[in-house]
């Protein structure tokens, strides 16, 4: 797909007139890229995704998904997107194939066509063997794969995945990543995914946006974001403890900062892998012997920490607090029910 797959302008959602879940958010997702939407629990990720997939009306602002406006042409959007929600939505009483066929019918795909596609997709997610088994007998990983198959039945241009690997074991997570990469590579699909696994976003996504308190606080390619922190950290030790090579190292291009501490040099450097050999060559050229060397890349964890002011681990630890917050949010959403119904 060429051009921009998703263009979001000042998208805002206010629940109950005072709970601002998403606050004038702006971003663009290019066609064919994997876009990661990061943020702590309750930051507004799911609210944003729900507006983009047309199941929640924005309070303000607009968004265009594959050239269809989400409020003015919701059905146009629905036709060209696929959705894998956070929850397992497949019907436990039905079999795998029945679930996929149900999804096909919801898109109005003709029977002969949908049968073919359902078989293909079940093959893709390796569920062919289990297709006639009731979903109640499926494991979590199988269910997640079935959700993928359901979401792909209409051959979407833009595929939305809300926390696709939440609660999965390491193997199933890796398998899910492979499917996502495959979809991008084979079909040029645009993928919009939310996650709070940072290594996942780092590895999969072409670009990410970090949202907190309903606002986007940083966006860009994971590497750019990491480099915005000032580059990689290289530590270096030379045999001659009395010599000072700080000035020498500073002259090497892409070196940002050099600090000497207890005979060890901490060097902040852009493109660490490429610059490191140059630094070593320069040090050797002056007749010094390098005895110790390490290179650490800043992870998305540090980026996250920098922008949200808290690390993802703290998030995990205070899960209960966030669960309470989530409940409050859900209640707020529900309280708008008609006729004073709670």
């Amino acid at each position, binding site marked *: 797909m060429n051009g921009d797959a998703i263009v979001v302008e000042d998208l805002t959602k206010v629940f109950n007139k005072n709970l601002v879940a998403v606050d004038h958010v702006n971003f663009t997702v290019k066609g064919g890229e994997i876009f990661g939407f990061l943020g702590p629990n309750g930051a507004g990720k799911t609210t944003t995704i729900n507006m983009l997939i047309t199941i929640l009306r924005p309070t303000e602002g607009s968004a265009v998904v594959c050239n269809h406006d989400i409020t003015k042409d919701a059905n146009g959007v629905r036709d060209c997107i696929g959705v894998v929600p956070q929850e397992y939505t497949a019907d436990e009483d039905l079999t795998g194939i029945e679930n996929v066929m149900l999804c096909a019918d919801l898109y109005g795909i003709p029977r002969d066509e949908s049968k073919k596609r359902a078989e293909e997709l079940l093959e893709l997610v390796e569920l062919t063997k289990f297709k006639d088994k009731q979903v109640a007998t499926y494991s979590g990983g199988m269910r997640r794969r079935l959700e993928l198959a359901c979401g792909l039945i209409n*051959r979407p241009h833009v595929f939305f995945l809300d926390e696709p690997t939440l609660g999965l074991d390491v193997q199933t997570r890796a398998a899910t990543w492979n499917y996502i990469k495959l979809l991008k590579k084979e079909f040029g699909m645009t993928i919009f995914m939310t996650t709070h696994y940072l290594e996942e976003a780092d590895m999969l996504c072409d670009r990410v946006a970090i949202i907190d308190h309903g606002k986007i606080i940083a966006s860009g390619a994971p590497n750019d974001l990491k480099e915005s922190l000032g580059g990689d950290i290289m530590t270096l030790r030379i045999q001659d403890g009395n010599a000072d090579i700080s000035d020498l190292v500073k002259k090497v291009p892409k070196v940002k900062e050099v600090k000497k501490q207890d005979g060890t040099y901490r060097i902040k450097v852009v493109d660490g892998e490429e610059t490191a050999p140059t630094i070593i060559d320069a040090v050797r050229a002056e007749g010094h012997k390098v005895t110790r060397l390490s290179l650490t890349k800043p992870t998305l964890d540090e980026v996250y920490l920098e922008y949200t002011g808290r690390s993802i681990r703290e998030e995990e630890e205070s899960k209960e607090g966030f669960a309470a917050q989530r409940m409050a949010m859900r209640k707020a959403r529900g309280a708008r029910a008609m006729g004073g119904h709670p």
Partner: protein
Amino acid sequence: MSRNNGNSKNPLHGLWALTNRDLKKWYKNPIILMLGIIQPIIWMSLLGKAMNLGAIFTSNSISFPQINPPLSIPQQIQIGQWLSNVASSAMQNTFGTADYFSYMAVGMMSFVVMFTAMFSGMSMVFDRRLGFLNKVLSTPVARGSILMAKILSAVIRALVQATIVLGIAYVLGLSVGANFTLLNLLGVYAALFLISMGLSSIFILIAIRSTRQETQMAVVNLLNLPLMFASNALFPASLMPDWLQTITKINPVTYATDATRQLILYTVDMHQLAIDFLFLGAFAVVFSTIGIVLSWRYLSK
């Protein structure tokens, strides 16, 4: 991947798929089906058979100790005969049929339809809770179809269960009226179709935004007794106090029961039957229309 769907789409696509999903969940769980039928059977066999109202007026249940000299055996038989004539004419005048079982068994058909409709809202709540509804809402299926599928599946379930109840009632001794024909049976289904459509629309509407099954249960518990007893399903409304009669006149269960009773047990009074169907038709159309209109606005938040 090229997309090649979406152009020549039927606006009702997905309606049957969603209806069928609910039906599959139902018939794949025979326990639920059984429970839905056992309850009316218990009512029929306990209330219908135990309350043998005709038996109150027999010589065995009335004694004449004060009469002196005692009645001779032929006289007792004569009085017994007379009493049972009085009884059946009283039954006939009150219930329109000589046995109470037949009277209430037909009422039970309204009862089973009413219960199925009442619980149809529950599946809406569960679909919302489990995220299934959100998934459906993100597809191009018409919002009205989502609601109609719920109504339709409730109606089909109700009609199937009513059929089973009717069959069992027949086995247990339901005496069908002399003028009963296949056309009458069609009329019965039409009446039950209309009431289940109207009632399930109401209960699905109540559930349209709800995520709590407790609320649904509370509403069902609150409404089932008044709907049941403030109607002619178990007892003739004409014998009730005036204020209660007023309620029975706006209770759709009354009209459905009257129509089915006329068609199964009595000789049809065309005028009264027309009123019944007019009321039931209006009831069904009004509430299902409200449901579809509101589904556009309220199904998504």
